[in-house]
């Protein structure tokens, strides 16, 4: 199967979605969502990244193997984050704050 060739229209629609995403994330930054502000910012960034991966990088049309490699990259990053933060979020930190913060 020769690699899929997307139409110019697809590329431009994806581009516009990315522009909208950028505007949205900047707008969202100036409004207080409390604890959710991180979730919103990361959510928008992940959607934009997925758009680039699926359409600009043709993962949408390429072999299952390519998708597997992308997912394994993300999964390993998740391993790193989940288990490192597991330590930091549950650590009863008794800081000698002065030395640390000063």
């Amino acid at each position, binding site marked *: 199967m020769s690699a899929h060739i997307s139409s110019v229209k697809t590329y431009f629609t994806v581009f516009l979605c990315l522009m909208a995403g950028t505007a949205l994330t900047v707008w969202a930054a100036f409004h207080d969502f409390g604890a959710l502000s991180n979730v919103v910012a990361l959510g928008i960034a992940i959607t934009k990244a997925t758009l680039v991966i699926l359409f600009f990088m043709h993962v949408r049309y390429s072999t299952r193997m390519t998708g597997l490699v992308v997912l394994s990259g993300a999964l390993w990053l998740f391993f790193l984050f989940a288990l490192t933060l597991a330590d930091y979020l549950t650590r009863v*930190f*008794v*800081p*000698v*704050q*002065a*030395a*640390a*913060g*000063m």
Partner: protein
Amino acid sequence: MWQNFPLFPDQASTIAPKVDAIFFFGLGVAAFFSLLIAVLVIALAVRYRRRRPDQIGEDEAPHDALEIVWSVIPLLILLVMFGWGARVYFQATRPPANAVEYYGIGKQWMWKFQHPSGVREINELHVPLGKPIKVKLTSEDVIHDFFVPAFRVKYDVIPGRYTTVWFQATKVGTYHLFCDEYCGAEHSRMVGSIVVMDPKDYEQWLTRGGGAAAPAASGEELFSSLACSTCHRTDSTVRAPLLVGLYGSQVQLADGSTVKADDDYVRESILNPQAKVVNGFQPIMPSYKGQVSEEQILQLINYIKSLAAPAGGATPTPAPGKKG
């Protein structure tokens, strides 16, 4: 080199038998499986040795059941080891409430200890038999590690934060203290000893040997020499909060939150006063960072602790001799 040749460390603390118990269980599992595999491999290799040059082995149908068995059984044994180990770990890292608190400072290639009564020692720590002892540790430079093999006690001593170890000695004697995290050139000389004594001898040693001023007393001198007393007065709270009865109480901060006035709060307020400003006061207190060493901070903390007694309470009279 032959006269003293131990093969097993002596048990000198309450946690030691517990650690040894799970160690022997682990050793038993390791020895059993190692011997099992070794005997099986040698027996099979001899029993089925090649007799004719062109002889080939018989093909075996796969036994999925057997595979599951020798996956699940090792896993179960491992989970038992995990659970038991976790219990011992919890006991070893949680000091009992009535533990007496000592201070320990690791500094490149020496140990400095301070008893609750203020006596200070270098590279040696005298402790009473049978009492739970908690040592609050921090480091002034790199990561060290407080390791007493006879007590089966070990924890890293990390700069920038407090870590604690606790033990309750069960045998009188002198035991090795090692620094167990690589810390530079003289890492292998950063050793000391823990001397376990009868409580009576310990008290005697304290008064006789450890003649240093009670930390609260020298803390009091520091309190005035560093001009803390100019603002923190006992009679007025115009410029600074009242310190009498402060230690251990809940403090209402300017940003609305409340925090317990423990060692770290006091320490932080000395070195970085703006971090937690008490409600109703201006952040005018200067920072003492760089002007006070770790020991002086500990002495100040002890002085403020001694103020915890109700006003006019028996502030300990300064002991006669004063060791620097």
